[in-house]
């Protein structure tokens, strides 16, 4: 059963320029779908459309079904209740995603008290439990500190905990690790994969890195300047790409494989300069 289904989604800017062009895809429950594309290909806009948070001057057409319910027809209030509770979000720049002058513990209890009828004390207890699950040591200290007192990696762990705490059915991760160092990136990716699998959630993973999509995704949709040019299971897309652009992406990515037994090092390939 599809948790999220997007049908003929098109997003047009105020001047009429087509930013996202008639794209449709679906997200099966418990599975991870990856939107793969370079910056400016419209993947972040698509994720914002699902959350109903498109900027005021953009027009959106097409349907977004969440568990069969068309979100477009919902009132602002009910769409807001879905955000956070049923659809969690993890952003690209962790240190900017938390409010700079509110302690992290308070932001957790604000989130929980907005969705569940529980006391702030109970919310903070659950939050600390989730923080320990994202492998953060002295969780009590983290609860009291501000986001600018934590490193990028720690901030992202807090963001993951905050996205997963209300047990949403769907998690949208928009380039969660591209702003982090290579070493912390690996830890965060494996942590994310384990938690999503463990909590049986479905994830919409947005990235420009083919390696990450091969590691995390069950199905992939390749986007280029606002259009989904190819879509299918990971084996089909990465193994037997049909679209020329996807082929080029895979070929270049293979050339840059570091580990032994990789392909020939950077022999200048035939692509025209």
């Amino acid at each position, binding site marked *: 059963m599809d948790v999220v289904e997007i049908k003929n989604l098109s997003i047009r800017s105020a001047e009429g320029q087509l930013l996202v062009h008639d794209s449709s895809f679906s997200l099966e429950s418990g599975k991870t779908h990856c939107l793969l594309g370079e910056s400016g290909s419209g993947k972040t806009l698509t994720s914002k459309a699902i959350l109903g948070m498109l900027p005021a001057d953009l027009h959106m057409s097409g349907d977004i079904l969440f568990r069969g319910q068309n979100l477009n027809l919902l009132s602002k209030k009910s769409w807001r209740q879905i955000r956070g509770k049923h659809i969690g979000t993890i952003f690209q720049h962790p240190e900017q995603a938390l409010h700079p002058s509110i302690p992290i513990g308070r932001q957790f209890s604000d989130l929980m008290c907005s969705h569940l009828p529980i006391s702030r004390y109970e919310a903070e207890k659950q939050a600390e439990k989730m923080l320990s699950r994202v492998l953060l040591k002295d969780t009590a200290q983290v609860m009291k500190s501000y986001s600018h007192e934590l490193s990028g990696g720690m901030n992202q762990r807090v963001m993951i905990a905050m996205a997963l705490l209300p047990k949403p059915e769907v998690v949208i991760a928009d380039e969660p690790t591209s702003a982090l160092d*290579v070493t912390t990136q690996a830890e965060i990716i494996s942590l994310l994969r384990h938690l999503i699998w463990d909590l049986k959630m479905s994830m919409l993973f947005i990235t420009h890195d083919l*390696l990450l999509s091969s590691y995390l995704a069950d199905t992939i949709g390749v986007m280029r300047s606002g259009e989904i040019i190819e879509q299918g299971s990971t084996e089909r897309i990465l193994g037997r790409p049909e679209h020329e652009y996807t082929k080029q992406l895979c070929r270049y990515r293979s050339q*840059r494989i570091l580990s032994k037994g990789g392909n020939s090092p950077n022999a200048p390939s035939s692509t025209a300069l």
Partner: protein
Amino acid sequence: MLQVQRLCKEINGRPILSDINFVIEDGGSLAIVGESGSGKSTLAQLIMALKQPTSGQVLFNERSLPRKGIKSYKEWYSDIQIVFQNTASTLNPAMSLYRCLEEPLINFTNLKRRERRDKILEYLNKVGLHRDLLKHRPGKLSGGQYQRACLAKALIISPKLLICDEIVASLDIVLQQQMIELLMSIQKERGLSLLFITHDLSLVPGLCADILVMKDGKKVEQFNTSALHNEEERDIYTITLLKSTESLETTWKQYATHDNKSTG
């Protein structure tokens, strides 16, 4: 030939760079690999005399880092040029591309207007940009075009050493690959010595002969690129850098291996 000796830099008490030493022979190429906060961009700015080091010195063909006086700076910059990180604002947004490229020629050479025009067209062609981009403002160029324009601006006064500070960080894979191949062809063609600064180890094989790994402002180790994979000699930090994408690469290779056979 660039010699960096015991270079240190402290900013309000915090050590950013401590005791960095390396040498780049004429025509040689060195990659400096390190994660964010390892001080590699500060190193680039010190070598470009945009900041003064706390201690230590930088020599290029026996001439030391310029401190005062525009003439000494100009001599230094006529030999060493830099392409900055692609923050899409290293070219003056109020100038046309033509005048951006003309600026170094006006300051460093006494070519006439006509000769300057030909020089600009020659380098524009070398970096693969079309002539009619010249009248546009830099703001109108795409990411890839912007970096090629910066490369042309740096190379137009034919420096002996080119420093690239994370020049492909924000480009997509296809443009990154084309930019690296362009750098390689220019380096071979003109025997240019290259200092390539990046956080992405996978860019380095094939481009640079030597690699210097940095962490928190200190030099971890320096070795030849061919020795990248024999783990016995390598420092544990270099190995973690190597290994960080390994688990991802193994899953990638399951899919990608058929791909290479079929399309070659």
